[in-house]
């Protein structure tokens, strides 16, 4: 058994086509993804929005609005307790992300001109009540809307900016109402201090274990495809051990070593080789392409072991199919991963949407797709706080493996090389 294990490892390591598909191909594709999808990752980050700021009479009266907008522009981080025109003041923290690239204009008409010539995506002005109003150009709205938005980072920035302005305006309205009902409150320094203290009202929370990464899913789908291609190892291991499938199988079946021993040794060696090759691809994706694994790298190695076990079980089943030539089976090691990867989202945005649609509407198909499950395995590691989704996906893959192995063993038990 040991001799067969070592021999299988040697043959796998010297199998150049397999090495290409399992190591060179994923690394090359990951490099390509890294170049092509780098911009996509940037598209999900906050970036300062070019806005015109109308410095009219209202603006001049509202010191609070000025301070607020300057803080969002990264110009100042001072604390004020000036009631201003609106009667509201905001204390801005020192670490505010710059959301606005301000271009100051005197009138609203000039601001509209800036929108028309494209030098600004919108403008900010202070209304008669001291509230801040944000107006976006039609083209900016169009570019930030829908699932096919071309300016997704702009949309995110507008969302954040809108939230901040809304908070400012609501706080201003609340202060005005309070002073109207309790005019003596305006005399209290403590009141103004508490009005400005909004840090406890909004805090950043993470809904996932790790910050969302738009490109990670493509890399995970790539890992899934590479993983499935590793089934070629176990196909060869089965073919070369079966008397009805190869001359090598005849020679090995005649030897005084039981067939189960030879098949198990071949399977274990194939599993080891595929796990190692997939680990290389994983390491490249993690450390060279800088795709996150949520700080759970050891778990990702476990995921590789589970995924490659499933791939080898799948290969065992394919390898055991009687009546199919080895060359056909080898062809299937490319065809099956390529086909299944379409439904796991490897081939771009449309494939991703198809994958999501399948998951939402026919979850059983997503469950039965090994490529989707391997992709999910890494997804679970990155995003979920606890390990239950990961354990569930591992369970699905192990169940799949058992089905594949049972089918493979059943076929192998039935086979004697009657055609000889």
């Amino acid at each position, binding site marked *: 058994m040991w*001799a*067969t294990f070592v*021999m299988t490892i*040697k*043959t796998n390591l*010297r*199998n150049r086509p397999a090495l290409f598909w399992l190591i060179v191909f994923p690394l090359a594709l990951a490099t390509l993804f890294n170049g092509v999808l780098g911009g996509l990752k940037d598209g999900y980050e906050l970036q300062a929005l070019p806005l015109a700021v109308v410095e009219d009479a209202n603006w001049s009266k509202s010191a609070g609005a000025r301070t607020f907008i300057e803080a969002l522009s990264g110009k100042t981080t001072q604390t004020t307790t000036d009631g201003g025109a609106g009667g509201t003041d905001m204390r801005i923290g020192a670490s505010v992300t710059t959301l606005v690239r301000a271009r100051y204009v005197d009138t609203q008409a000039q601001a509209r001109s800036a929108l028309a010539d494209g030098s600004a995506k919108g403008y900010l002005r202070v209304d008669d009540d001291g509230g801040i109003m944000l107006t976006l150009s039609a083209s900016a709205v169009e570019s930030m809307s829908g699932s096919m938005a071309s300016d997704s980072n702009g949309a995110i920035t507008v969302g954040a900016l809108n939230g901040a302005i809304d908070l400012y305006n609501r706080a201003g309205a609340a202060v005005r109402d309070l002073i109207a009902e309790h005019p003596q409150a305006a005399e209290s320094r403590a009141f103004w201090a508490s009005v400005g203290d909004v840090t406890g009202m909004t805090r950043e929370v993470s809904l996932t274990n790790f910050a969302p990464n738009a490109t990670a899913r493509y890399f995970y789908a790539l890992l899934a495809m590479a993983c499935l291609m590793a089934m070629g190892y176990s196909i060869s291991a089965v073919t*070369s051990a079966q*008397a009805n499938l*190869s*001359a*090598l199988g*005849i*020679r*090995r*079946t*005649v*030897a*005084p*070593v*039981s067939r189960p021993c030879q098949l198990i040794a071949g399977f274990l060696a194939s599993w080891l080789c595929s796990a190692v090759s997939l680990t290389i691809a994983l390491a490249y994706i993690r450390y060279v392409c800088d795709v996150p694994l949520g700080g759970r790298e050891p778990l990702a190695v476990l995921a590789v072991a589970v995924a490659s076990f499933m791939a080898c079980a799948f290969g065992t089943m394919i390898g055991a199919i009687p009546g199919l030539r080895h060359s056909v089976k080898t062809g299937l090691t490319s065809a099956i991963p390529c086909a299944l990867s379409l439904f796991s989202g490897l081939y771009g945005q449309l494939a991703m949407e198809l994958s999501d649609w399948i998951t939402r509407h026919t979850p059983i198909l997503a469950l039965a797709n090994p490529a989707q499950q391997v992709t999910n395995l890494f997804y679970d590691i990155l995003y979920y706080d606890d390990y239950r989704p990961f354990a569930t996906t591992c369970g699905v893959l192990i169940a799949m493996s058992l089905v594949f192995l049972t089918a493979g063993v059943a076929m192998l038990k039935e086979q*004697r*090389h*009657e055609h*000889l």
Partner: protein
Amino acid sequence: MNGSTTTKTPVEPARPAVTSPAATARQKTAPAGDTPAISVSKLVKHYGDMVALDHFDLEIGQGEIFGLLGPNGSGKTTAINCILALLAYDAGTIRVFGEPMTPTSYALKRRIGLVPQNVAVFNELTVEENIDYFCSLYVPKKTERTPLVEEAIAFAGLGEFRRFRPGKLSGGLLRRLNIACGVAHKPDLIFFDEPTVAVDPQSRNAILEGIERLNADGATVVYTSHYMEEVEQICDRILIMDHGRHLALGTADELKSMIDTGEHITVETLDLDDAALAAVRALGFVIESSYDGRELHVRCRRGEHNLVDLLAVLHDAGANVGHLTSRPPTLNDVFLELTGKALRD
């Protein structure tokens, strides 16, 4: 292989003691008292409705080189696969060295070597690694195995190619590697299934000499081939089979003596007319004859004066005789007469 039954009556001569020149030279026989290397009795094997082996009997003594001769589909490979427990069979018994042969007869399998018809080696392993791996299936201990591997490399003449991978070897060297992988563990019983297919004459001779050396070292050899000359050259006894049945068994000389054909005479003559041809065909010893305008071919029954009588008829007919040959019967003639078809049909 087809399912029809032959209308020919199989020749079942009394099995003679092996006294072929080759056997005598090696001072080996298949003594009746020894446990046969292989004993097959009334073996029946069907593939669906097709009968592949029809109550097939076979007994091979230890130390023999035994030839199994038959056309494609005659049941040779099926018989070997049944003996090797690669195939299940429907009826009959198989014993190897006196023991029933089953897929889990590992002790017996240790004593058996197989050289399959197709080259069965790993393309990713070197010559040495291939031999070492296949030997390791029989001899797990490295210390015991290493000298056997070296011996097999030397035996096959692959010393200078030991680090080569099979893809770099010529057809002849590949065949030699195929053989080395099958014999490295020094089996007592070796099956050679068409080992010289697509091999150049030089390599073929080397292979045949190697088989004779293995036999001289004590191995029993079962040899199947389409090449009658090879079978005749190295085999002590030969079994001719067709349609899964045992047709005839004996040494090459014994087999030839079983048939009517005595000799083939070929006469180069350009002026043979119909009357002369009729006169030739009227000769009592002529089994069949043909004339293509250049050569006259005559298959004769056994007789002392066939050639003289034929030349007399040609002389009387006024034919000018050029080149003339007479050759004794071959195994193909035996096969032709027993089955009505040539061995390589």
